[in-house]
């Protein structure tokens, strides 16, 4: 009997501390620029996506995101947030900057799609700047404005702000989606995305 009690106490102690230390909410999101939002402005449900342009899984999940947007027109809105995992993806940050600069000229999503579609081409380059410029050219961005934007402190600040928010919300992996307050990571968006959207819309 003594051993059982000791065992239970030893088991319960860290469990209790962990439950006490565990956060019950993941903090607020800052608003994102309009150019990084897609879907109806009147949509009841916002889906926030923390993504990394060099992440293969983030590229693979894009068709799912598109399918969900098509399946729930007027009901959901996607907000893209940058979360380049710079410790494992060395070109992720520069890709995020380039996409943000495309966004300033109103073509964020076009550039976003281009980056994901060509990921394997630029991800391994030592310096992908030339490729970013060629993408900008392909989608007819003003080259001078684009190039100036790349080195603007404001652009870097926008990325850092998203990364800080991701850190506060304990987002460590990409892609991570918040459908309302429900977090789905990686492939769970494929398996549970629609079900979660339905559940949140019913609230």
């Amino acid at each position, binding site marked *: 009997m003594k051993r059982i009690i000791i065992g239970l106490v030893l088991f319960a102690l860290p*469990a209790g501390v962990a439950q006490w230390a565990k956060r019950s909410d993941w903090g607020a999101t800052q608003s994102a620029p309009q150019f990084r939002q897609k879907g109806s402005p009147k949509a009841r449900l916002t889906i926030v996506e923390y993504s990394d342009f060099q992440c293969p899984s983030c590229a693979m999940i894009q068709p799912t995101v598109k399918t969900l947007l098509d399946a729930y027109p007027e009901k959901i809105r996607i907000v893209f947030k940058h979360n380049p995992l710079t410790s494992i993806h060395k070109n992720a940050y520069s890709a995020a900057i380039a996409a943000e600069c495309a966004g300033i000229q109103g073509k964020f999503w076009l550039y976003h799609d281009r980056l994901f579609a060509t990921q394997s081409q630029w991800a391994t380059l030592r310096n992908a700047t030339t490729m970013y410029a060629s993408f900008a050219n392909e989608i007819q961005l003003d080259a001078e404005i684009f190039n100036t934007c790349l080195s603007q402190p404001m652009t870097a600040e926008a990325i850092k702000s998203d990364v800080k928010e991701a850190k506060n919300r304990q987002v460590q992996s990409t892609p991570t989606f918040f459908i309302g307050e429900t977090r789905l990571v990686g492939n*769970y968006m494929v398996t549970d995305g629609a079900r979660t959207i339905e559940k949140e819309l019913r609230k």
Partner: protein
Amino acid sequence: MTTVSHPPTAAQQHGSTAARLIIGIVLLYAGFLKATGPVAEFAALIQAYKIIPSDWAMVAAMLLPYLEMGLAMFLLAGFETRRSAMAAAGFFGLFILAIGSTFLRGINLASCGCFGPDTLNPKITILLDAALLAMCLWLARSDRHPLPLSIDHLLSSPSRRRS
């Protein structure tokens, strides 16, 4: 013929205590981080190994951290040390098999999610787990006498303590 179990030397005792504490601290730290972090993150990592179905991955993500912490506390407190060491060895063995199987099956973990800076490289994880597994097995074999500074020692009979 009776087998005589010789009491451990001072060096063996210190070694066993150190092993117990190292394994316990590692398990407690790992378990605590996962228990206090978002379950969805850990579930996605488990799912990436493609060993168990998604729903089970979520359940595993909810339970495993608490099992790790419980085991850690048993080891740190020196309670049921041999059994705890064997259980911990089982854990590390399973982790090694799971990670090793991704290499054999050609699974690219990045295709299921990119896991940030707090996630160890799989190859480093295997080495770390192998070292901890070896320590667990050594601890389970060597700890036939309750060690000082342990609950096992407090609960054992005086004659066992003296031997």
